[in-house]
């Protein structure tokens, strides 16, 4: 995801909520979740077929997702919980993590087999973390302006290396 990681460690369990004594059971031994820059985390499906009952509660934990460096302020809505689209509460922002969607893909047929409603709780907003620049002599690679010019047999005068310090 945009926090710069290329993979996370995950665990997947299910719990039979119809039984008071049941404990969480790992049903997929794969713990390596891959990710990419589109805020999507992927996990290989279990190779063993499972028959799931309606009382099973499914948990997928993803460890080590980086905290965003900053976020926007939010005033809690009084009427309903899902307020990221309420511009009265949140202002008119355009970068949201949105609520999570869980889906299963069939890699051979290249289609989405199942998809949840997108109402799984968002953890936080603002996955986008922008890096800051360090520039040498204000050099711009796109047009090669401000290149360093040195005369053979001598050194240049001091050349600046500048670090951006904007926080967003």
């Amino acid at each position, binding site marked *: 995801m945009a*926090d*710069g990681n290329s993979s996370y460690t995950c665990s997947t369990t299910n719990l039979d909520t119809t039984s008071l004594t049941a404990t969480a059971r790992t049903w997929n031994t794969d713990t390596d979740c891959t990710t990419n820059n589109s805020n999507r985390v992927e996990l290989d499906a279990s190779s063993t077929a499972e028959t799931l009952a309606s009382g099973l509660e499914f948990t997928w934990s993803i460890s080590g997702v*980086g*905290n965003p*460096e900053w976020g926007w302020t939010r005033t809690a809505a009084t009427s309903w919980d899902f307020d990221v689209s309420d511009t009265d509460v949140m202002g008119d922002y355009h970068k949201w993590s949105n609520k999570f969607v869980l889906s299963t893909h069939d890699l051979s047929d290249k289609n989405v087999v199942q998809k949840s409603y997108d109402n799984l709780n968002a953890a936080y907003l603002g996955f986008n*973390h922008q*890096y*800051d*620049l*360090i*520039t*040498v*002599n204000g*050099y711009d*690679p796109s047009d*090669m302006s401000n*290149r*360093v*010019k*040195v*005369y*053979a*047999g*001598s*050194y*240049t*005068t*001091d*050349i*600046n*290396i*500048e*670090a*951006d*310090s904007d*926080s967003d």
Partner: protein
Amino acid sequence: MQAKKIVLEATANSRSRTNPESKLAWTSEAFAYTFYQEYTMITFRVGADKTLSKGLYFINWSKTETGQASSTSPTTHYHHPARTLVEVVAAVTNKWAFTCETLGSSAIKGTSTPDIGLSTTNSPFSDVQITFALSAGTNSSITFDPTSLTFGPNDLKKYFRIAVAADYDISTASQQIVTFTDSGTDADVYSMPNSMTFSIAEAAED
């Protein structure tokens, strides 16, 4: 700056022309390529050997970043700088000049003058040696301390003094002219000050 500390490292780009590694050099003696969190700017200098042919070369950068100690702060705030394009111009005769300070008052017999600065804007890649002489010829009563100055890659200004002995015959010449001769690897690239004239006076008696 956002990070606690960043140390940059510059390396020759392998796609540059033939072996610039030893002939293209860079130094950051004041900062050691290190940003501390109070800084937003550091400096470095690039130098080229006199025999390096003209061309475009690149310097690659890598960085080692130390993040702020905070659970909410990512460990990485910065990308390393884009590779730096260096244009090397083949050695130009008298590209840079040395200038010499002049004395504000006469040199006094029996004493040494104050330090006289000899400086340039761009330090030599290797070395330039400057030797002092008198245009009127050697005079045993006038000596230079030191007798010559050698400028290296980190030298922009150095100082010398002129000592006038008490037995100097002021009636022969109350003025002397210092001339400068350069030698050394990069001497061609630098022009010398034409001359530096100074007056000599008797010590005041009270």
